[in-house]
Structures are given as C-alpha cells and as structure tokens.
C-alpha cells in the first residue's frame, strides 16, 4: 500500500477551525490524512504538544491560527509564532526535519485555502516520507526536555515583550540578538541532555568516556559537568585512576 502520512493539526477555534468547517460546507475535497485537535487559540499550543505528537508517531504537525492582526485574542497568534519558532529550532537541533511542522494562518472565510494548505502539507510530508518512530521518538523526547526547561520557556515567553518594551533595565533588545541567546540555550540544553543520556547509558561515567560517547572534546564536557553539578543534576561519586566518576542525581538510571 502506498505510504499515507499521519498528520495532526492544532486548529484555533475562531479562524482555522471555522475555515475547516467552511471547507466542508463548500465541499472542498482534500486528503484525509489529518486529524484535528481544536484549541481556542493557536497560542495555546505548547511546543511540548508538538514534540509529543512526533514522539507518538505522527509524521507531520500543523498549527493553524488566525492571520496576523486578526487573532480573536489580540496577540495569541504572535505568541504561537514565537513558540513554533522555538519548536522549529529544537527540531533542527535534535534532528527532526523542521519541514514536518507547519505554522500557517487560515481565516474563517478561507475554506478553499484551508483545503489547499492541507493538500500541500500532506504532499510535502508524503515526499519527506515516514518518520522512523524508533529514531524520532527518542529525539522528540530530548526535544521535550529542552522545551520544558524553564529558562528557555522564559526566554521565548518574554521575547515579544523584551523586543517591544525592553527588559527590566529598559533596554530594548535586538530580535536577532535574542534569537542567538535562545539558540545558545537550546544548544546548551541539548548538550546537557546528551551528556545526561551518556551517563544514563553507562553510569558511573568519566569525562573522557562521556566525551567519546557524545563526540565532544573533554574540555567542553568538563565545563558542562561543572554546570550540571552546580545545578544538582550530577554528583561526583568517586575518583578512579585520577578520573572523577559521575552519576545522575534525582533521576533513576535506566
């Protein structure tokens, strides 16, 4: 049987969901691959929901909201944009093709367009092919860890405010600069997670053994180990042959 992409859509109640209904009323025919979760606003969609969908074997996820400026909740779709921007970046970092996530706007009057958007997205995912669950599942799980870090969520949540109104010191931040900070944080979290999984795989672990497993140099790994220890996430158990051996804290080793 030909490959049929498995797609999930998060549709905002006021625009995209209404547009999807209008597509029905207008009998617009489009591929039957997507299942819909209705949310009141696209701003409700947490990056965690999207990554969760990939972890659960979906090949593509669409987040559809109102056109910029038309949000029923004023700014919800701008928030959605920031959150999906984070999600795209996290997907890129953990190795799930960001093209599998679609963020687009469909108004309540755009039944025809809704059909087109879904048709195009279905074709796009069909070309990308199925997402290998065994490979993507753990990647998505790492992504979820990153997207649930309070520091990153804070940065994303505050982004619009800091760019538009400035930080607590009144300095307006440059958007590109903020994006760099965000990216660094994602990379950091990703690397920390890599290290944590390396320890998880062979605990206790030493800096050289971790460095080999995660393909980083020992100096970098060591810096992360200090960070992680300060954050109370790893603990130096003992020292064997001059090499400190670390174990994870607050997590049951698998």
């Amino acid at each position, binding site marked *: 049987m030909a490959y049929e992409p498995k797609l999930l859509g998060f549709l905002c109640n006021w625009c995209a969901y209404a547009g999807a209904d209008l*597509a*029905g009323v*207008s009998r617009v025919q489009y591929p*039957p691959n997507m299942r819909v979760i209705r*949310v009141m606003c696209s701003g409700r969609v947490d990056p965690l929901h999207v990554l969760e*969908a990939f972890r659960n074997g979906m090949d593509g996820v669409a987040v559809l909201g109102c056109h910029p400026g038309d949000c*029923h909740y004023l700014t*919800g779709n701008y*928030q959605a944009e920031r959150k999906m921007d984070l999600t795209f970046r996290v997907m890129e970092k953990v190795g799930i093709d960001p093209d599998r996530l679609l963020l687009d706007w469909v108004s309540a009057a755009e039944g025809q367009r809704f059909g087109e958007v879904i048709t195009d997205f279905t074709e796009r995912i069909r070309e990308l092919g199925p997402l290998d669950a065994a490979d993507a599942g753990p990647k998505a799980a790492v992504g979820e860890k990153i997207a649930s870090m309070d520091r990153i*969520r804070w940065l994303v949540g505050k982004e619009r405010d800091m760019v538009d109104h400035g930080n607590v010191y009144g300095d307006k931040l440059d958007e590109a600069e903020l994006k760099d900070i965000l990216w660094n944080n994602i990379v950091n979290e990703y690397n920390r997670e890599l290290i944590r999984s390396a320890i998880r795989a062979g605990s206790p672990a030493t800096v050289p053994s971790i460095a080999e497993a995660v393909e980083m140099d020992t100096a970098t790994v060591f810096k992360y180990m200090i960070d992680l220890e300060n954050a109370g996430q790893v603990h130096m158990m003992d020292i064997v042959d001059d090499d400190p051996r670390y174990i994870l804290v607050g997590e049951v080793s698998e």
Partner: protein
Amino acid sequence: MSDPVGAVLVVGGGIGGIQSALDLADAGFKVYMVEDKPAIGGAMAQLDKTFPTNDCSLCILSPKLVDVGRHPNIELMTNSSVTAIDGKAGDFTVKITERARRVTEACVGCNLCAEACVLKGRLRNEFDEELKERSAIYIPYPQAVPLRYVVDPVNCLQVKTGKCAMKCVEACPANAIDFDMQDIERTVEVGSIVMAPGFEGFHAEAKGEYGYGRFDNVVTSLEFERILSASGPYEGHVLRPSDGKEPKRIAWINCVGSRDRSCGNEYCSSVCCTYSIKEAIIAKEHSGSVEPTIFYMDMRTHGKGFESYLNRAEDQHGIRFIRSRISEVQETPGKDLRIRYESEEGALREETFDMVVLSIGLEPGEGVKDLAETAGISLDDFGFCETEETRPMETDVPGVFVCGAFSGPKDIPETVMEASGAAAKAGAMISSGRGTLVEEREFVPERDVSGEEPRIGVYVCHCGINIGAYVDVPAVVEYARGLPNVVHAEENIYSCSQDAQHTLIDRIKEHGLNRVLVASCTPRTHEPLFQETLREAGLNAHLFEMANIRDQCSWVHMDDKATATEKAQDLVRMSVARAAHIEPLEELSLDVIQHGLVIGGGLAGMTAALALADQGFGVSLVEQEDALGGNMRNIHYTLDNDNVQEYLGSLVDRIGESDIIDVHLNAKVSEIGGFVGNFESVIDTPDGPERVEHGAIIVATGAVESAPAEYLFGEDERVISQTELERRIAEGEPVGRTVAMIQCVGSRDESHTYCSRVCCSDAIKNAIRIKETDPSAQVYILYRDMRTYGLKESHYGRARELGVVFVRFDLDGKPAVDTDGDALTVKVKEKILGEELFIEADIVALAPAIEPRPDRVDLAKMLKVPLNEDGFFLEAHVKLRPVDFATDGVFLAGMAHSPKTMEESIAQAYAAAARASTLLAKGEVRVNPAIADITEEMCIGCGLCVTNCPFKAMELVLKEGGRKAQVIPASCKGCGVCGASCPKLAITMKHFTNEEITAQIEAYRGVA
C-alpha cells in the same frame, strides 16, 4: 394607560416567527406562537441547502426549532389559527382555534401508528410537495417540532366515516391516539402582535405554457429542493419523475409567476435567481454529469456574497446562463422537454432537456387575507402586508408588527433581520410589562459526578445522508462500543432533532452516563444545543464533547467511504479519550451594564440608538462627523416619494429629546476593553477622552461611495454621480434634456466584485423624477442587469411606461463616454438591433460602487471581529445570525454589513437593537468557565503570564509561599497563551488541559 400585557402573539412558525419568538422570550416576554401547520419550521425546513454558503438548511434551522420547543416562555400552538383579535396596542384579546390533532402529548414519535395505518402509502405528504407518501396519521418531517403525530382529518377513515379498524390505536404503545379529541377554543391576552405567516409558492399550473401538471418532468423549484434533500422522495438522488432516471440536461426557468403582469405578479420575487444557482450547483454536486442551464431575464444576485456565488457557478461549476424569454415548453415522446425561447438578440431558438425546473415566485398566499382581515391590517395590490419604507416592520394597526415574506418577497437573512426588528418594536411597545408573565427556566439540580469512573455515551449522527452517505455510521458506532470507558453507543438520523434530545436525556439516566460524545457536525454551531440537553438531564454542560465527522470529514472526503470511515473512527477515538478527562466546570455569572454603545450616527446607528432607548436602555451614540445622518444626508427622496430629509430631521429631533441617549459628535471610539455585558471604552471627543461603561456594542459605521475612475468622471463636469444628480433634482436645478445613466461603475468588476445593490433602484428613482418633471426629457439607463428586486420592480415598470430607455451592456462591452467638441457623447452597443447607439447627453450620471469605509479595519481589530472578502464586516452566520458577531455582545447594522437600502438598514438596526436588548434585559451574563487554572505549588511568581496575557486577566498576589499568579475569572477569555508559556508548567487551561491534549495525541497514535 394601564400597564401593557407582557406577552406577544407571534403568528407563523417559520424562520421569521421563530426568530421573533426567541428574541422576545429571551428578552423577558411571554410568547404565544400560533402555527397553522402541525409543525413549525416553515419553508426553510423544506429547503435542502441555503445560498450562498450551501449550508444544510435543516441543520442550521433545527437547533432553533428545538429552542422554541423547549423555551419556558414560549407556548407553542400548532395546527392552530387565529380567529379573532380585539382590543388595542398594549392589550389585545386573541381567540385561537387549536384544531383537534387526535394525538395527545403522550406521543413518543415512534411511527408505529403510521406503519399500521390502513391508508399507509396512499396519501401524499405536503411537506415533500406531494412527491412522497404518507399515512393518514403522520408527522410532516422527521425533525418536526413538536414531534407529535397528527391525524389528517380530511382523509382518515375513522374521522371521515367512523368505520375503520383503527389499527393505529392498537399499534400505539403510548395510548396517545384519541379520536374523541375536539377542537379547542383558546383566548389569550397579549400586548403586541408579530405577523409572520410567510409566503406560498406560485401555483405553476397557472402558467400553462410551461407544462407544469401536464408534463411529468416539469417540476417546481420547491419540488426540486425536496428531490435534492436526503430525506426527500428520492433520498437525495437527482432523478426525474417520469422514469426515475438520472437527468443530465436540466433547465431552470426563472421568473415563473414573477415579473409577469399576465398572472398579476408584477413584482420580482427576489430570491429565485440565487436559489436557481444554488439548485444547479447542488444538482451538479450530487451528480457530476448534470449539465445545468438557467434561463433568466435579469440575473439578480444583489445580496451579500451572491455575486461571487454567481461567478463561481459560471467559472467553477460550468453552469450555463441564457438570457432569454421562454415562449413554451413541449414534451417529446420520450418525455424529454423542448424549450422554445427568444434569445436576447431576438432569435427564436429551441433546445431539449431531460428535466425542467420552474423557479416559482413567492406569493402572499390565500390564508393571509383572512388573517389581515381579522387583525384589521391593510394589504397592498398584490396581497402583501402594506408597510412604509421608513417603517418596514409596522402595519397600519398600532401594536401589530410584521416580518418576512408577508410584507414582500425576501430571503432568509432579510427575514431574520426583520424578525428581530419586529421583536424590538413589539417589545418596546410593552417594555414596562417585561418580566411580568415569564417563568424562570426550570432548574435541574446538577448531579455530582466527582469520584465516578468515566461512563461515556457516544452518539453518531447520520445527518440524513450528509454523513451517512460518505461514512459507514453503523461501523463507527460498533467501533465506539469497543473503546475504553464507553458504556453506550448508538446512531441517530439527526442527533440534533428534538426527539433525539429526549432520548439522550433518557439514556443519560438509564446508563448513568457522566460524559456524552456526539459525533456529528461542528461544535461551533451545535455544542450549545447539546449542552442545554445535558443541563436538562442534570449533567454539567461541560461534560460534553463533539467529534466533527461532517464538516471536517464526510463533506471533505466524499469519494472514499472507507478512508472517511477510518478517519471518523480516529476522531471518535480521540474524542472518547478526551472525554474521559473532561471535568464539570462551574459557571460564573456577572451583572450586565444596561447601557449600549452605538458606533456610527447614520440611519442605522440613529435607528438602533432610538430602538434601544425605546426599550429603556441608555445609549452612547458616537458619530465622527459634526452632524448625525451619515449618507442619509445626501438622500432626498425615496422610490415611494417619501421625504428623506424630513425623516432625518425627525430622527435627529427624537434623539435630541431623549434623556437617555448621549450623543458624541466629532468623536471616535479609540479603545474598547472588557467583554460581553461589561465593556469599558474610550471615546475621543473634542472635549477630551471620555470613558464609557456599557454592556453591548452596535457597529453601524456605514460605507462610502467610491470615486469613479472611468467615463471622464472628474475630467468633464457634466459627468456626475447619481448622488449629485439627486441633489440637483431635489433642489430644482436643471439637469438638461438628455440624461444618460451608467450603472455598475466599479461594481461587479475587478475593482469591487460584488453588486452594490441599491444603484439600480436609485437610477430608476431619479429617472422617474426627471420624466415626471419633464416628459419630453430623454433618459437612458445603461445597465448590465436591472436589479429592482422585490416590490421595487413595479417602479421599473413605471419608468418604462414613462419612456425611460433601457440599454443593456456586458462587462466586455462597456459604454464609451467621449467629448466631441462641446458635445458629450455616450456610445454603447444596442443588443437587439446589434448596432452602436450614440447618445449626445447633457448629463452623464454614474452609479459608483459602494465600498467599505477605509477606517473599518482599525475598528475590526479593536473589536476582534472579522471582515469578509469584500472588506465588509462579517456576521456570525450569514443566514441565521445576520446582525450578531461571533464575539459576544457585539452586533452589526446598516451598510457596515453590506450595501443596502434605507428600509433594509432600518430593519437591520432594529434587529441589532433587539439582539442587544435580549442581552441587556437579562441583567446578567454567564462567563466562560473554560479559563486558566494555576497549580499554586508549582508557580514561582515570575509574572510571565501577567506580561503575556492579552486581557490583563492575570495578577500577582502575595500569598503564603511568596508571590503567586492568580486568574481574574471575569477577564480571562481562555485563550491559553499563559499555559503554553509558563516556564514552570504551572498553568493549564480548563477544558483544554494538557492531559486532554495528550490523551487525544496518544489516542491518535493507536488504540492503547
């Protein structure tokens, strides 16, 4: 005068009567609804689809039927007629005869009696235009309200002869059949009356040349609606009556019984052009091989969104349009039909079709004459209720109001607007009697389901064939039975019908259901209906979930039943998973500020403000200019010769005299905050900003005349607009001996794709004035389609009688306006002669398109309401909620909605006021309980939610354990932005919790 009776009589249970009754009952008045037929629903219930959205007619109507059936303040009397009306406004005594139904209220609607009837299959069902059979005991249609069978006294053997085995009585499990039942005379006291008896279809036999009644395959448009309908005679298959074959070539003949002096119906029926397009599109949808052809005189698609519907019909659906006059229809030996017609160029032609549909017009009907006599109201020459342009809902008897097709042909949204408008008038008349005769809705105590395991009931709807034909519904039901927590599953033909609601209540009790899932259409339209049923069953309304297997499944995957079924099963599985997690929500109610804000001081705004004030509500009326009136200031007289400036003056005076209307001139609304019932806005006035608190908003900002970019406008001063021409006529300035009027200047072309609706009538109005003043003056009207819809058609006839010359042109053959020396010439190709016509004109008057105001975009954003493709404000539902916005508490009137006549603006303004009044009169509003929910132990008081909340609904409060976020329930609109951003994942959204979303995702992955 003593206090008026706080009750209203509504005559007629079609969509007009229904809307009036619901508005009045919601606004605190007792309503007696009298319907002649055994069930309410009227003509709308018979329609298959509605234009221009092709919405399923009964699907959108059914929730309203159910609302009427169960409204505690509406007393429904079907099979009944009004026999006498005495008294006067404020205190009428009405006599009503309720004809013996011979079936008591014990009827459960099981159909066993009809099955048992000895005449089964031998009588014809009127609801199906007699294309389908019925018994002598029957219901008109499956979703009928009340769902109570009725004995047809004319045909029933027992009633007629007293000699029948009465198998029906034997079969009835409820002992509901009572042949001793007698007619009942009732007397009710009411303060005012709304007449909504509707229309009858033209009796096509009267036009013998079309062969109706003689040729099997000539059907009326109403019969064709039944043929298209899934619950109709052919179950939605397009078949022709003579041999049951699928017709390929189908012709529609328009204006059958309309625009026709020979049958006494000189008027235009207004809706037939668009409904024939609809029927052609739907027929083609049912069977792709159908080749529809529409024969017409002028294509009158003047309504909102109709012109693009016409364009789609032609471009996308390949429907053929032939401008013509039909001479006759003949039948061939094979029962095909040969149409002989005269083309626009005057050529006689013939073409053969498999089936012919006669687009019959709307007539007042026989019964209304008696009704009019009983009420003492005057009818016009055609038998329609007489009204004035400035008083569209008023009869000539005070206290008796009218809406819908009784006062002239009109479509559903126009009827709904007038119905709400009539409710405003009827309510204002007796406003001091508000609340005196109504009952509080019976409160069913809510069952506490906490601690119970989820017990889910699943209902899968066929929606006639809308779902059933494309999704294997029994398979979905069977599938649902096997899902976790599902204790009961069943299918319904229509889950939204009244009997389905009763069954649902029974099942909830019988199976101890604590969650209900309906898999049918969209929650956006039907969730409130089912939630109300849950309330009646003693369940919290929020223990309800819907799976959208129609709009987002069966309708969009019509060619692959297996896949559509699989998708429907997935959607049901996901919804069941979610349903297991949903929790009851407590509804909070808040006081409503009983004051309205009306934005725009033109005709619609002034009318709405006065209508609200008449009901006793204070109003802030905001006008941008330095005087009230808007576009009305440039209108001097109407088609009926009413003096507009005088009327404007009277409105301004009445507003000035009102103590409770606060007028702000040179002012603009700069800020709108709050929510339904509790808005807080800022009006920028010349004296500085003013803060106003109000419960409702009416948008009446109007539209503007566009500036023509062609025909030498602005280059030659003899080329003017119709508005300027009207001013000159009104002020007695000379307009010359030859006037050429050019229509559709910027309308129905690439600059504005829609029709501006009023220009044809305006041109006729001015042309008549010129000819009446100076019969020797030459007036030419160059037009594309003459759109003098409804009763305006007789003025078109009058203009022709006066010698106004009408010349038609096409978009690709526009007239050319030139100057030749001093002469101003207009050149246009005359179709019949096939020659160029030269007009040397003193004045060329253009009909510029009406376009939306440029500043509406800012207002739309402030109000968070949408605009349509043409840039006009988009209402909540084009058919049934024409003056509501999807945003609660905000309403719409006048040309901000779309171009319209003064009469229509007035009707819509009253309608908007009526809708606003139902809100203001209640005094309280229920607040959305699906709001943010904070887990305090996880909150670190970072304040990100406070920063990001678009509605200032979050605050930080010092509590034990530090600063914590707290929701302000009345302000929270439940968007969920805070939940998706919270760094500590401490916020979730009630009713859209992370657990619910996760459950749906995991359920989609596969059966756990």
